[in-house]
Structures are given as structure tokens and as C-alpha cells.
């Protein structure tokens, strides 16, 4: 990993000021915790002229009916947020990174790929890739589209919870469903405009929710599969993470579950529907086919926990900790 490239640094005190700076500077990026952006900059995946820090903006740290995008993941874990979000936040990276990384940062996390998350010299040795500086997607050489994987843990949890997000720019603001924030494209993965700031997350009430993360180890690792499930008066919603370039709601399974009680048979059937939508690529940790094979199990765990089963033993095995 190289040293950071040179950049200008601004730390405005308000969202409005941040939005103004962002609108006026062509090559600026937002930085919150920097836990994803700074390593990427060291590897030259990006080298913006200016970083606009959001960490001095108190308004982004609201914690209650709405969740400020500037809350650290540790603050989210310790908040009254629904369980799925707290479980998701708790399983991001490590303690130190959660103390720095933010909710908004996790939602806007760059997509990941074994051919992309490498240092400059390594990428040079493969003549770069479609996502950055190259022409070929080495994961799927025939693909015109970058297949880097969405690796946010919080997004699937929030999708299942039916969350909405607030975006502010110098020209206005808007609120959209979280699902509308994402594109299934490893390069152009966010529908957030470059001049917009994600400021708040709004979470409607829910009855129960859960998040299951599959990864190699008990800490550090990004998900190779995330399954979130939430129950609300409107029904059960399941969302998947890390198996496409965006997190997404599994509408087929959610439709199937409508009005049904979570019996073992219903859970099995729904889990199969969920798993059929998990289409991981060979660009992350662990064996690709295995990751696909076990999706049904993870979906089953999530639905059983949502039903109220005591899944602590299984969770301890998979997550190596209770969250």
C-alpha cells in the first residue's frame, strides 16, 4: 500500500456549507470515518483533489426517530435502532473501524472485488480492470458491466426494515426509499448524485428483525453473504447483501410470505426462493459454489430467528460472537 496522495481538506460545520463546497468543486469526495476511502486512496483506486469531511457536522449525529448518517457504527450498535441494524453494524470490520466508520459511510461503501481492492502495482500487473483504469472485467471477461459486489452490512438490514434516506444538495433535498439509492452496477453503484450528501436514515416501526452475515472469520471480513429479515405490520421483508453489485429486497420471497405464518414448511420454501436470488461472483473470499449452496441455510436461520426461535447457538458458531 502506498502513502496517501496529496489532497485538500475541508471540514465544514453544516450540511449546507458542505453541499456548497461539494457543488463548487469538480473533483471532491465526501469523507466521514474514512475507513474505506483512505485505504482506497492509498491504493490509488481514487485520488480526489479535495476531501470534504462530514465529521464536524453535528446535525449528522442525530439519534432517535431518525438516524444521522454521521453516527459511528459503534453508536448505532449502542442505539435503540432495530435489532437487524444493530446486528449488521456490530458485524462490520473491527472495533476500531466501527469507532470511526459511520452509518452513512457504510451505506455508500464502494463495491468490492478481488481484482479491484489491490494496490496500484498489483493492478498494473493485471493491466487493471474495468472498474478502474482498465477495459476488462476479469471476473466475467465477457461482461460489459462491472460485477464488483456491494459489501455493506447495514444496507440489507435497512432494506428489510423499509428504511428511507434523506439526500441534501445545494440545489435542494429529497427523500427516497433506500432501495432507490442503489444501482446494480459495480462502478455506478449509487444513485446519489455526486453533489448530494446522505444526511439521515428514517426507519419505520417494525415488530422484529434480524441480520445474518456470512464471512470467514469472527471479525474484519466483509460479508460474502448478508441476509436480513424484518417483520412489520405490512408483512415480512427479506433483503440480501454481497451477492450482487447492490443490496436488494427479495420480492419473490416477500410476496410468497405475504399473509403466511412462518411454519417450518413456509420458511423452507421462502429460504429456497431467497437462495435462488443469491448469485455471487468469484471475486470475494470463500468458494463461489459453496457460498451459493449455503445461502438457503442462512436464509433459514434468519427466518427462524425472526419467528422467535432461539438461534444463539447457531449464531455463535457462524458469527463467533453473539450480537
Amino acid at each position: 500500500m502506498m502513502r496517501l496522495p496529496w489532497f485538500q481538506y475541508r471540514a465544514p460545520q453544516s450540511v449546507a456549507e458542505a453541499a456548497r463546497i461539494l457543488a463548487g468543486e469538480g473533483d471532491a469526495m465526501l469523507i466521514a470515518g474514512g475507513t474505506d476511502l483512505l485505504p482506497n486512496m492509498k491504493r490509488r483506486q481514487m485520488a480526489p483533489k479535495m476531501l470534504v469531511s462530514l465529521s464536524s457536522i453535528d446535525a449528522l449525529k442525530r439519534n432517535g426517530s431518525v438516524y444521522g448518517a454521521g453516527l459511528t457504527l459503534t453508536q448505532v450498535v449502542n442505539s435503540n435502532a432495530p435489532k437487524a441494524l444493530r446486528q449488521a453494524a456490530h458485524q462490520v470490520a473491527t472495533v476500531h473501524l466501527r469507532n470511526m466508520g459511520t452509518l452513512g459511510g457504510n451505506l455508500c461503501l464502494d463495491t468490492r472485488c478481488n481484482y479491484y481492492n489491490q494496490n496500484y502495482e498489483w493492478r498494473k500487473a493485471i493491466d487493471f480492470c474495468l472498474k478502474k483504469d482498465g477495459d476488462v472485467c476479469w471476473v466475467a471477461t465477457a461482461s460489459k458491466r462491472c460485477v464488483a459486489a456491494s459489501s455493506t452490512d447495514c444496507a440489507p438490514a435497512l432494506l428489510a426494515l423499509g428504511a428511507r434516506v434523506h439526500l441534501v444538495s445545494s440545489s435542494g433535498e429529497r427523500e427516497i426509499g433506500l432501495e432507490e439509492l442503489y444501482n446494480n452496477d459495480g462502478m455506478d453503484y449509487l444513485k446519489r448524485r455526486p453533489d448530494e450528501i446522505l444526511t439521515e436514515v428514517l426507519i419505520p416501526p417494525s415488530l422484529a428483525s434480524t441480520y445474518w452475515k456470512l464471512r470467514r472469520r469472527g471479525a474484519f471480513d466483509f460479508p460474502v453473504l448478508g441476509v436480513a429479515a424484518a417483520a412489520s405490520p405490512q408483512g415480512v421483508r427479506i433483503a440480501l447483501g454481497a451477492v450482487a453489485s447492490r443490496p436488494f429486497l427479495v420480492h419473490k420471497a416477500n410476496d410468497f410470505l405475504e399473509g403466511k405464518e412462518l411454519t417450518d414448511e413456509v420458511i423452507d420454501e421462502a429460504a429456497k426462493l431467497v437462495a435462488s436470488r443469491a448469485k455471487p461472483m468469484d471475486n470475494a473470499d470463500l468458494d463461489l459454489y459453496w457460498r451459493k449452496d449455503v445461502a438457503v441455510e442462512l436464509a433459514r436461520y434468519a427466518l427462524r430467528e425472526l419467528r422467535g426461535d432461539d438461534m444463539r447457538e447457531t449464531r455463535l458458531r457462524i458469527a463467533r460472537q453473539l450480537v
Partner: protein
Amino acid sequence: MKVLGKPRRRVDGRAKVTGQTRFADDIALPRMLHMKLLRSPQPHALIESIDIAKAKAHPGVHLVLTGQDFPVTFGILPVSQDEYPLAPQHVRYVGDPVAAVVARDEQTAAEACDLMEVKYRPLQTISDPVEALQNPEPRIHAYSELGNIHRLQAFEFGDVDEALERADHVFEDLFFYEGNTHLPIEQHASVAAVDGEGKLTLWSSTQVPHYVHRSLARVLQLPASHIRVIATPNGGGFGGKCDVCNHEMVVGKAAILLGRPVKICLNREEVFYMHRGRHPVLMKFRTGVTKDGKLTGMHLQTLIDGGGYGSYGTASTFYTGALQTVTYEVPRYKFEAARVFTNKPPCGPKRGHGTPQPRFGQEVQLDKIAEKLAIDPAELRLNMVAKPNSLTANWLKIGSIGLEQCIRTVVERSAWKSRFRKLGPGRGLGLACGSYLCGAGLPIYFNKMPQSGVQLLVDRSGQVTAFCGATEIGQGSDDVLAAIIAEVLGIDPFDIRCVTGDTGITPVDLGSYSSRVTVMMGNAAIDASNKIKNLIAQATAEQLEVAPDKLVFANGRVAFDGRSVTFAEAVSFAEEKFGTLGALGSYKPPRAPGRYKGAGVGPSPAYSYTACVVEAEVDPATGWITVPKIWIAHDIGRTINPVLARGQVEGSVYMGLSEALMEEQVFRRLPPKLSRALVHKIPSLLEYKSLTSLDMPEVDTVLIEDPDPNCPFGAKEVGQGPLLPVMPAVANAIYDAVGVRIDELPITPDKVLRALELKAAGKTPRVGPTSFPAVPYPEPVIVPPPWEGGDGNAVKGHERTKLKVSAA
């Protein structure tokens, strides 16, 4: 024992935990410049040209070096002097250094590296041993034995075919052990500076300052007396800093040319390229056993992926076979090995050097044998443990063996007898053993001089300063040195100053590798301490009017029967009587009995033994593996500092479990139609997976003390041996849990699930290598075992027939 065996804070512990230990990267000298290496992005190519003009002209750049500046090769072994500090023409893996920039800061040096234009003529790449066997050309090295086969070795100790013929059962198994790397937290770093007289000092995070010293003299063509190498405390070594590194040579040259200090720190990716870690090894075992579970003979073949350079490879190749006879009685043994060159970072020694791979194979095979013969795996092993004070088939001299007690200990503590094969579906226990060297019997380059020296300086203040070339790499060598001297002189280890790992002022010690430091440095320290003690005793005896041998050195006093003086007073008497006090001690291992060519690898003053039981849980639906507990007992001879010893055992368990479950140094070749890239798949600490503390089980550690007469106070090694049984014990536990054999490492959930699917389909529930390619092994060197009339020398083929007749 007043000091030994008591848990103590290590003598360098406070500085380490308070962040005050100065590692190589902490060194900052006035006017210091910084260096970066430009590394090859090509896996295999010839350099056609390097244009350094732009880099040289870059503001802040002081010096640009290329291969043309380094005409002399180096290499850790005399037989493989195959590396250049910077490749002049031929690059052999992605990451091979081709040029260096020295600049005012690291950033500037990195920018200038990017301005260099190197034209490469690509060569066909070799990615694995099968390709190396199939493609003798293009040759990665001209000096290899046959095509791209670096080394071929074959030895036969007794007629193994005959031994297998008369066995009741012959087990034939293939195993594969994937390569993995050391993962020290500290990346390699070096600082070089010349003094006013033009003499060079190199501070480096190295385990082997003596060998670096020799290589610097050779490569820089300077008198060794003008070079001083200081090994800074290493932030972990594990074998990764045992080799002489390119950057150590280049930074030395740069400092000489510029007359200014120059520093280089490798980044994490570069450490993955420097590598010298665990060789990937494909193994074939043919083992004969009697129906009551005695081995009749073993035939082991190995095929070893060496990467792009020789490194320690020739020794590693020997080590994939040499120690197979030390754990259990193997009456006849045949060993054939081949190491090939491939276009990947060179492999070398990692904790256990060459032995974990065949140990994995043998211990898993023994588990299969035990099951087939319906003998408890612990009983099977207890029935065949090698005998103390014996010779092995390949003429290694074994001294003390605490293995039986190790096995009994882990069996008892894990409640093995009531739980093995009885834990129910998804849960299991596995047992395995291992043995390891306490220092290689021979030095890396041939000589008959001591392998470790200790000098003691004692003065009237009572202070003791110990000088030794041994290198503190985190393992606690300074603490062992202080403890042993303190034990002899009856003083507090904290009152001893250790000056170590400095070729300019300390006696030669070969370095921190092959688990040699405690035994060799320790014996040298006892030698020096006894000499000093004798002088002090003589002088003090006169003062106290007693016989010198009646004096007791303890608790900082020299005493006889109620009368005593302080240690400082006693030293004053001696200084008055003998003049300024100092003593030298040295150690050379006993000569090994083997006389055949190749007998130099394997002998050791002593061998340590370990037994381990692993408990595993496997989820049948996903293959997900959980290891809740590990019991391990290690025959350490004698414990010097239990805190450090237990730390070494637990660290070995950590590393072993990590290798068993996830670590792999693997490479990626892109679709050949589109690219000729052959790159390390995951050169990062995030994506090269190793266990986190959350993945570590509870470890029940027992140290078995069976003092070995060749060792200082009987103390054997503990740094490497405890790693060896962990990997096979995991594999055996998984078999006990779900009845599938994973005959390759790492054992990942996808392999377990695949094997479970095979089992469900009624097929052989095994995942592992299925074929062993034809390797042109040479005719073996034939050496009759001690009990078949040999004398340790090799014999000609026709003589063997004669001997066999006479043996019969």
C-alpha cells in the same frame, strides 16, 4: 533451580508493552534518505531496457540503482547463489525487484519508481509443479538439475519394497499441503549508514545477522571487517526474516554511494512477495503395517513448489523427508523428493521448515490405519513411539523422548477414551503428534567452528553484560540468555544486560532459526558463566576460607554456611585477584552418526515432541467448522520461563489452526487468451485469511519436562514443534465428527460440504489430491539402517543385496 521454571516477566517485556522497543523502522538518523524498490509486474520475462532518466530527474531523487550496479549474486545456501539484489536481466515472479530509487522521502521515491520505463520481453510462465515438469523450457534458472526441477533427492534406508511386501496392510495415500506465509506483524525494514571512515552499518529486521553480514561482504565486495550488521528486535519472524533480502543489499550499496543514511521499509504487499514461506507440497505415502499396528516401512514421495528462487529450498526439500523417522519407529524408510521452480515468490522456511507437510500426511494416514485395524489412534501411536537414546533408520541420533507422556497427558485431559468416536454426529476429536529439531546440526555454510558464542563481561559493580550474536525476534532469546546466566551466577535476570544480534560487537551466533537458540546459545552461555563463576568462586573462597566448590551462588549472594558476600563483593575479589574479568563460551553440536551425502540435514542435539487433541464441530448442512478446544502437551525438556514457553505453544496452536483452516498463499493466472498475468491472489492482511482472536479456541497447554542431557539444564525447543500436530489433529477431528477425509490443507467448509455430498451419494467421502505426476526421481542413495549392518555410509546398489543376505 532458582530462576528457571518460575514464571517471570521477560527481561525485555516492559519496553515491548510500553512501545519503547526500537524496531528497524523506528530508527531515524540525521540526513536520512528513503528508498523504494521498483518490482517487476511481469511473472517471467527478460528485461530489454530500463529508462531511468525521468526518475533520476524527478525532484528530490538522489540515486537510482538497477541490476547493472550489482554484478554479484547471493543466496542463503552456498548451493543456490541465484539471486541478484536487483534483477539485471531475468525476472522470475511478479514482485522481483528490478530497480531502486533513493529520495528525500518515501513518497518521492515511489513517484520516481513510477516514472521508470522498463521494457520486458515476456517468457512463458510456469505456475505449478505439474507445469514445471511438463515444461523443461524456458528454464527459470539455468543451474537447476533437470529442466525446471531445481533439486531431486532420493534416499533408501533398507529395502522398503520388501518391507511393504511382508506387511499385513499397505496404505497408500496422497496429501496436499497448500503454501502459506509467515505473517509477521512487523514488515521488513532496514537502515544503512556509513561512518566517517566509510564503514557500513546495517540495522535490519533480520533473524540472521551473521548470514546477512557474509552476504553483504560478498555482494558489495567489501571486507567483512568494514561491515556491521545489527539485528533490531524483530516484530515477529517465523522464518520470514531468515533469508538474506534484496533490500538489505541495495540499501547498503545506496548508503555507501551517497554517504548518507538510507532507510527502506517494505509494505505489506512486498512482504508477501519477499515470502520464503511454507512450500506447497504434494505427497504420496506408502506405508506398511502389521496387523497389530507396527510400521514395517514407509515410502514417501514429495513434489515441492519452490517459487522463483532457491532460497532455503534445498534444505527444505531434505526436511520434507528427514524428520519422518524421529517420531515413531520406522524400520525402513525410502524418501524421494523434487523441488521445482515456478514463477511465484520464492518459498523457504516457515515455522516447522519442511516438516509440517509430511507430518500432516503421516498423522492423517495413521488415523486411517488405526481405524482400519480397529486400534485406538492414541494406543496405536503409544505402541510405536521411537525409543530414547536410539538411532533412526536414516541415522539420526535421538536422545530424550517425552512423547509417551505427551500422548497420555492429552488423552487424559481431553477425556479421549470416553469421547473419541462417541461424541455423536457433528462433533469429534482428533489426535496427532510431532517432533522437531532443537537446532540444525550443521551450519548453513560448511565450517567446523562454534555455532554460538557468548561473551560475558563482569565488573566490580556486580553488573553482568552478555554479548551474543543471537537475535531477539519476539521469541524471548534475550530472556533465555539472561535466565541461564542468572541461574548459574545466582543473580536476578534483570541485572544482566543483553547485547545481542550485532556482528560488530557480539560473538557469532548463526541466528534465530531451526529452533536452535535456547540449546546452542544456552550451552554457550553456561560455558561462559561457569568460567566466570569459577574465577569468582576461587577468589571468594580465599576470602571466606572455604573450598571454592562449597560456595553457593544464589539470590545475588555468594555464600557458604551462613557466611556470605554480595555478588558485587565477590566479583571485586575476583577482579582484584585476576584482573579485569571476562569469559567466553561457545557451543558446537555433537557430530551426527550419518556419513552419507545428505546426512547433514536432520541431525540435532535433541528433538522435542508434542501431542495434541483437537475438538471440532462440523455443521452437516454447511460444512462450517468450529473448534471449541485444543489440548496440547509439549516435551520441552525443561522450562526456562513458563510464561514464554506457554506463549510459544499457544502461538504455535494459533498458527497451526490458522494453517489448518484458512491460510493459503495462492496465485491467480488470468485467462491466457487475454493476459499473461500470474499474480498473488490476495497480498493483503485483510484478504489473506488468518484466525482472529474470536476464532481461537480455548487451549489447554501442558509442558512435559524430561531434561535432555545435550541441552542447557535439559531445555529443548518450544518455538516450532508445537505447531506440527495441530493441522493433522484438526483433519482427524473432522473425520471423527462427520466421517469425511479432507486430505489437503487448508480444510475449508466448501471442501467438507463437498465430501459430505460425496458421502451422501455413496461415494468415497474424501476431498484431496487424486493423482501424483510422474517425477524423474534419481536412483536412491542407499544407506542400510543401523540394525541392518550399515555404518552410516551409503553403499552401492549391489552391496545392498549382499547386506540384505547377511542381515537375514
